[in-house]
């Protein structure tokens, strides 16, 4: 059984406890998207204080770039291309990249997920995918709500 599957099972038993502002593990601090930055790309003191620590974030899994990858983009709102309001894909500024130990199981991009892992801050370009990120969660596990 993979760790994420274990978390899914745990979540099933404690599902009623999973709501914004809490974590399945009460000791794990919860970081909200709107708490990430003070303004623009200036990180908040809260975010900086959690660098290198295990955190939980809640959001949506953007459709992965290709199958069998070990990372996904976590977004505040479902990552969509609105036919009437967008003519091109508009990536939000406040996305977070989650790196997992195993290939990911894709969750539909409109389903909320709780992601837990180590917060890593700073510019980083993935040597394999060339994907650039400023905020990452590594060793990420996730459960669908």
């Amino acid at each position, binding site marked *: 059984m993979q760790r994420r599957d274990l978390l899914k099972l745990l979540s099933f038993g404690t*599902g*009623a*406890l999973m*709501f*914004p*502002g809490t974590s399945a593990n009460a000791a794990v601090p919860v970081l*909200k*998207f*709107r708490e990430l*930055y*003070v*303004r*623009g*790309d200036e990180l908040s003191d809260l975010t900086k204080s959690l660098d290198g620590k295990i955190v939980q974030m809640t959001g949506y899994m953007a459709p992965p770039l290709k199958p069998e990858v070990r990372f996904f983009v976590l977004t*505040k*709102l*479902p990552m*969509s*291309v*609105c*036919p*009437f*309001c*967008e*003519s*091109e894909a*508009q990536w939000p*500024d406040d996305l977070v990249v989650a790196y997992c130990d195993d290939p990911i199981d894709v969750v*539909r*991009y*409109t*389903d909320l997920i709780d992601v837990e892992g180590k917060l890593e801050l700073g510019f980083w370009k993935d040597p394999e995918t060339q994907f650039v990120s400023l905020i990452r969660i590594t060793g990420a596990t996730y459960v669908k*709500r």
Partner: protein
Amino acid sequence: MKRFTKLFLSGASVALMAQAANAQQALPQQTDSYFVSAQQELFSKLAEQPNTGRAKNVILFVLDGFSIPTLTAARIYEGQSRGVDGESNVLSFEKLLPYVALSKTYTHDSQVADSAPTATAMTTGVKSLNGTIGVTQKVTLENCASQKGAEAESIFELAEKAGLSTGIISTARITHATPAAAYAHTAFRDWESDATLSEEAKQNGCKDIAAQLIDWSAGNGFEVVLGGGRSNFLPESAADPEAADKTGARKDGRNLVDEWKAKYNDGAYVWNKTEFDAVDAEKTEHLFGLFERSHMQYEADRAKDKGGEPSLAEMTGKAIDVLSKNKEGFVLMVEAGRIDHAHHAGNAARALADTVAAAQALQVAYDKVNPQETLIVLTADHSHTMTINGYPKRNNPILGIAGTGDDKKPYTTLSYANGPGAKLDEPRPDLTNVDTTDLDFLQPALVPLGESETHGGDDVAIFAAGPWAHLFRGVVEQNLIYHVMAYASQLPSRVKAETTGAVK
């Protein structure tokens, strides 16, 4: 003296009605607070006099996607945000714009509209095809060749020809459908920059929407242009001022911002709030502001914008300061463009916050003009699928829980008929212990449409005040809005007079 007589007579009418009301003392509900309040409203309406003067100025507020449930929910949301009773709260335009009608938003080819032909209906007076802007029903969607001979002239073009000042404001891209209907003529709304033009469009000489704005030949051009959409005006070779790792979208090498600056040496171009605040309206004849690469921020997120953005109210106030210097008057469109986007995302909180921001902008506009000589219209282009479910108690949070379904799970007061808030082939989520008032919460939806909730086909409201505003009554076609604005301002005849030298 005539005006004094009118006021005197209307005062006498109210006095007579008050006497009549006193004669109803026998009614058992006579002193009930609701009864008294509504009776006072009656007196207020009896005192209203239709204004049949010429509209010197016309201001059209378009609240994109502002459905009637959005109106009700925003009213409650705004009141509750201030800690007062939400249900009986009154938004600025409900109080200031007394004439109301229902607008039928269907288009020439569709039961449910998009923003392109509905904006066209308001700015040119015709219904047209979904996806097209500033053209008549003769056009074929995405066919550039069909544009020729199908162009419809907008009230902004008329105003410029008649010597008035003009302005457009939007929290969306300024090349987006609603503001584009003031100046563009295109068979496809997505042709916002040359990068999105089709081969057929290029071969047949159709211009992208951003280029049409800069090359606009009506009068001396817009005096005010404020909104988002900067990337459509900058070439791929130009770095964006707000995001150094991003560039413009244009592939033809044109820098439309530089072209605008060269065209208007009496103008000011700004891209952030600091520059915007520094603009002296008295000394500025042309103002061009592009505050985001794409759409401007939602009002709920605006304070965190990297470069800083003015609010819709601040843009409206500055625009009127610039425009009102023209003694001939002005025509201004103010679009709250992102109510629609938040609804598409299934995110009611942001839609309501942007609606409140629009109400604040309306108040600013009303306070800056002479309401006796300014026709102000506030309406929506189309509806959305958000609904208000029963039966929450009075003062229940509008973003809260309304009740419990047969499945024993709570349901929210606000929900959508379709959109991202629906589960795919799964039972609906259990909202027990979920904070549904959170800014990022997506309201539940019935039909899963993950990419975007849809527009709605129900009628929308028109609110109006000022000269000939009383023509907005009953259930009307959306394109009547143009005809009332044109009639009230007499712009078509003023253009004719100008060509013979009678005006200016």
